[in-house]
């Protein structure tokens, strides 16, 4: 009985914590536009996450992209060139200009919400 009670208490705490995480615990970000959402969808469909990280999450063959747009050494233009042509390891996906625009717009959105990267002085 005692064991079931402990389980029940943990489970209820989990449900409560989850609901908080789903709402107030994560409400700092701005809401993305539908164009940015399209970019996100393309990011998933081409599985960019297999080589790139956002917020440190993703595969490691390619560079971290969270702040690629605001990074002084990289920036939007550089990102566009990579997306349009590929590079040594990065494949050329033959993306249409519309797809590239949506991806860039999505990366801008991610960058704008990367508060932790900026306050930590990185």
């Amino acid at each position, binding site marked *: *009985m005692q*064991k*079931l009670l*402990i*389980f029940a208490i*943990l489970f209820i*705490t*989990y449900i409560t*914590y*989850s609901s908080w*995480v*789903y709402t*107030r*615990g*994560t*409400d*700092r*970000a*701005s*809401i*993305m536009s539908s164009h940015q*959402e399209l970019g*996100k969808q393309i990011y*998933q*469909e*081409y*599985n*960019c*996450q*297999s*080589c790139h*990280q*956002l*917020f*440190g*999450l*993703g*595969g*490691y*063959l*390619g*560079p*971290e992209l969270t702040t690629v747009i605001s990074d002084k*050494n990289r920036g939007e233009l550089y990102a566009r060139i990579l997306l349009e042509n590929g590079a*040594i*390891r990065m*494949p050329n996906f033959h993306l249409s200009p519309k797809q590239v625009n949506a991806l860039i717009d999505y990366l801008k*959105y*991610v960058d704008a*919400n*990367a*508060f*932790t*990267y900026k306050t*930590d002085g990185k």
Partner: protein
Amino acid sequence: MKISKSIPGTWFFIMAISSLFIGLLFGALGGLQYVLPGFLKEALSFQKIRPLHVYLVINWIFCAAAGAVYYYIPYVSGRKLYSTLLAKLHILIQLIILIWVVTGFFMGRFGGREYLEFPPYIVVLIIVAWILFMINFFVTVRPSFKEVPVYIWSWSTGLLFFLITICEAQLWLLPHFNNNIIRDITVQWKAMGSMVGSWNMLVYGSAMFVMEKITGDKGINRSKKAFFFYFLGLTNLLFNWGHHTYIVPSSELVRTISYTISMTELLILANIIYSFRKTYFKTNPHKHFLSFRIVTYAEAWILLNLVLSISISVPAINFYTHGTHITVAHAMGTTIGINTLLLLSSLVLIAEEMIGDGKLFTPYFNRSFIFLNISLLVFWLSLVGMGICKIIAVHEKNSFTEMMARLYPYFQVFSISGIFVFLGLLLVLMPVFKTFLKLGLAKQSSDPS
């Protein structure tokens, strides 16, 4: 009493080992792409190789864990498996998912998230298969939770929370989650972190059963300590996922909670295995010696990974290590060193129950097993080395290309030792694979389950 043959269990093992072998092949190819930038760049790029590798090796863990549960539950409950038909259906659906996902990845059909890169509709099949498995488990075991040993709690929890987390991992399909990057990423890692906890529950449950079977000591799985450990593991499953997301700007509280909770779990497991070893030498030194040996190696890996996990859960260290191969060392160190070895101990125990105790304990096995562990150590150290080297490169503001050049020697060690890990697993698992293949193909008339 001996464990009796289970047809569903046997076929799950065959599927699991096949899946692992193919998955390792993709791992080895992925390793080569680190060293040879142009290798298979267009035909089978890392974009396809990584999900193929990760999906197939994780499928090994799930299928081997399921196979072990199918073998163990008639034994522990003293009842026949509730429905062989449902179990066969479970295998069939699992096989369909496997083929569907793998061909999809080959053709470049993604659309999901990291670790679940396949299109989300496949999840419906995964859920159906899992529910069939749960029905068979709960109706066969009919656990009375007041009395049952801790491994029944572990399996039940693993079964329940995989179902919860695979559903949670699909929340991004709702705009409330998808449109807010912080919420989306936090919830994705919350779900994946707890999902790893759910398969750990399945794997550890079987490992605890193995210990009981080897020592004949039923006390170890009914003691206060065992339950203390179980509840601590459960607390980790529920709340420690946040260490993946320290850098994500969610609330501070998420970080504090997960850090506090992360510090404990593996230590307790190491402790339990340690006391198991003492009992083993006292009670029954010659039974299933090979499984015992594998578990003691897993114990060493637990300790090694414990040091790493605790370190990277400290926010000040995580600040540097996140986004480096130290995370991969953590992921592969635990999935190979701990999960794969503990599952191997179950497979060996079951195989030897079928063909005779000690039959697999040959000098060949011994040599292969040592070879595997040495290769794995080098492999693991090369990943940690890559991570440290990357931290230094980032600190010195190297560009990505400069950093990749600097890491090159580590890539070479990683890729070569990875091939050795592949060979080691192939050598170790081949006799086990052959045993189950023979059992699977034998006349089914003697099937008691």
